[in-house]
């Protein structure tokens, strides 16, 4: 059975902007939230989300991926977000002054409504890959197997990432509660 996404993608591949817009409507919110949970900055998340859909538009005619469209989108989104976070962190190490500005710009969880500062601080202390695994597992509620597909890891490696993330979060949130 051909999925709705597959139909829209086939039309997008022929240059149909309306079909592309429908794909954007169906997936942009989920992609944006996943990226946000990794980069922890709304402005950066919006830029990266746009990049994901630019790639989708450009690559639609040569689409050969056997994976589901959502898996492809999450894969591109998580790769871009993890790379972005690592770049930001490298600059953080290189230039202390710039780092303070970047840190100010990339700790906006506190700016978002209904956000818990302790949880935000704990999440921002995790490595990017662990944040990605947490985002897919607990925010998108994806099975470990699907997360493994998206991150290009084995289920065992994903479970290990999640285990380490949970231990670190427990530690950090416990410290905050004391």
């Amino acid at each position: 059975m051909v999925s709705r996404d597959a139909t829209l993608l086939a039309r997008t591949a022929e240059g149909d902007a309306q079909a592309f817009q429908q794909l954007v409507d169906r997936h942009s919110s989920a992609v944006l939230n996943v990226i946000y949970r990794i980069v922890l900055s709304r402005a950066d998340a919006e830029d990266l989300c746009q990049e994901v859909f630019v790639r989708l538009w450009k690559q639609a005619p040569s689409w050969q991926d056997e994976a589901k469209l959502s898996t492809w989108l999450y894969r591109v989104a998580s790769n871009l977000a993890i790379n972005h976070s690592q770049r930001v962190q490298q600059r953080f190490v290189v230039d202390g002054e710039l780092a303070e500005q970047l840190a100010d710009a990339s700790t906006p969880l506190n700016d978002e409504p209904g956000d818990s500062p302790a949880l935000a601080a704990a999440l921002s202390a995790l490595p990017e890959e662990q944040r990605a695994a947490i985002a897919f597992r607990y925010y998108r509620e994806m099975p470990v197997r699907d997360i493994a597909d998206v991150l290009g890891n084995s289920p065992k490696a994903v479970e290990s990432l999640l285990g380490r993330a949970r231990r670190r979060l427990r530690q950090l949130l416990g410290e905050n509660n004391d």
Partner: protein
Amino acid sequence: MTSYFRALQCYGANLREWPAHLWPIALLGMLSRRGRAARRSALADDAAWRRQLQSDGLSLAPSAAMQQRLSAIPGAHRQVAPPQRPVFLPVSMATAAAMVLGIAIGATDLTSSSSVFSDDYQAFASLDIAGSNDVADWLEGE
């Protein structure tokens, strides 16, 4: 039972998310009291983490500005044409073609150069490779 607990750790407490080849192990695990207790504990743990992490209630929606940027993508970016695949002969066909070509060239060369070949053979046969003629000349000189 060990593999049941390992699978529980690896694929989570939701047995529907396990790969099909592990379903018999899931069934066996569920038959034991320890297996059921471990699964209940894993489910509770998973739910607790989900509650805690989703407690911020944050769900971003694309802003109006972002929606505009996304809508503008088709006008601003050119689609990449699918790469033209080079024409590849199947291996068996390529091998057969090479063999036919090789035989044809070989046959043509043999027929056209057979006399030269025999001349060369005569010249080769008269060569004093071992140098026995030189030794004989030297002995005669002595």
